[in-house]
């Protein structure tokens, strides 16, 4: 009997994931807009499969200076969520959330890390709410882990976790930001095949 984790995802699985995660991203941005008290626009939401070998390119390449907030997903299915920013943009986002003038934040101390973590909590929570409402699955996110380092170093443990059962990863990513103040970030979600199949199944049942 083949390991179900190793079976490739079908086109309809991927389609279901694209639709639900697109709605989840839109909801996540609503959460962020509410938190910051201003309209945050989202870019194109892209869903694709990426070879694990190339996954660091999603963060700008292995040596790119990166501030990231990581969440482990657990519950009825597993997965990973990562919010990725260029460090200067992360500082900018902290300034916005704290109501400070641009350029105030220059490094990530405890307070700044908790701001980025809270932004992640809100976006991740809204995203998961959409997934849960659509699929009936119960999904939980870990407390945020805020990191600032080379992109490859931040993400390689996540890649290792996925590599145990696969050579590629399904991602959904979008950019978000405002026109006035540049807070462009990337929101990456890497679901396990179980999560995608769960969504796909619940949509067929609906």
């Amino acid at each position, binding site marked *: 009997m083949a390991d179900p984790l190793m079976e490739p995802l079908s086109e309809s699985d991927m389609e279901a994931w694209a639709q639900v995660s697109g709605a989840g991203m839109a909801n996540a941005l609503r959460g962020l807009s509410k938190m910051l008290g201003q309209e945050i626009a989202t870019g194109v939401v892209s869903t694709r499969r990426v070879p694990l070998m190339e996954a660091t390119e999603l963060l700008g390449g292995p040596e790119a200076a990166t501030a990231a907030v990581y969440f482990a997903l657990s519950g009825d299915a597993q997965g990973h969520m990562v919010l990725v920013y260029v460090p200067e943009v992360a500082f900018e986002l902290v300034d916005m959330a704290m109501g400070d003038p641009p350029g105030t934040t220059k490094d990530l101390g405890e307070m700044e890390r908790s701001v980025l973590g809270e932004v992640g909590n809100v976006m991740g929570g809204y995203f998961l709410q959409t997934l849960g409402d659509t699929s009936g699955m119960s999904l939980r996110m870990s407390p945020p882990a805020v990191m600032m380092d080379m992109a490859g170093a931040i993400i390689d443990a996540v890649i290792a976790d996925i*590599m145990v059962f696969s050579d590629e990863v399904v991602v959904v990513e979008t950019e978000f930001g405002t026109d006035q103040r540049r807070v462009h970030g990337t929101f990456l979600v890497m679901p396990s095949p179980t999560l995608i199949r769960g969504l796909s199944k619940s949509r067929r049942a609906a």
Partner: protein
Amino acid sequence: MSAPDNTSVVGLGEIRVSKGADDVLVCLGLGSCVALCYHDPVAKVSGMAHIVLPSSEGRTLTAPGKFADTAVPALVEAMTKAGGLKSRLQVRIAGGAQMTMASEASGIFSIGISNIEATKSALRRAGLRVAAEDTGGSAGRTVRLAARSGEVVVNTSMSSTHSL
């Protein structure tokens, strides 16, 4: 990547061997991953593996470099094919950081410690001794290996540079 032409990037799970005068092998942005570096000073051959996980758990492999237990012997084999001799190999390892201690996320991030332990025990099994290491901690590393001299240089993101 804007690396000079004589630099070869050793990607996740890859193994590369080189003997060119100015060749450099490099693992970029290692967190929990481990750069396994071999050098034969007589044959002037160097080899590098970019280890991602501790154990292959008996799986059939397309990329033995991915796992500590298979990368150690596979890199010996690749070095031997390029004219190196196992008894002359100098071994250096770098990487295996734990990038975050945040409690519930730290499960997957503790893989770096397992990678280091598995690499060392595979080296012991192969009868190879570690000449130098820069492992653990919580900072990312870029590791460069000069093929001809065998010099290993580690850069961390917080801009410190040192040789092993």
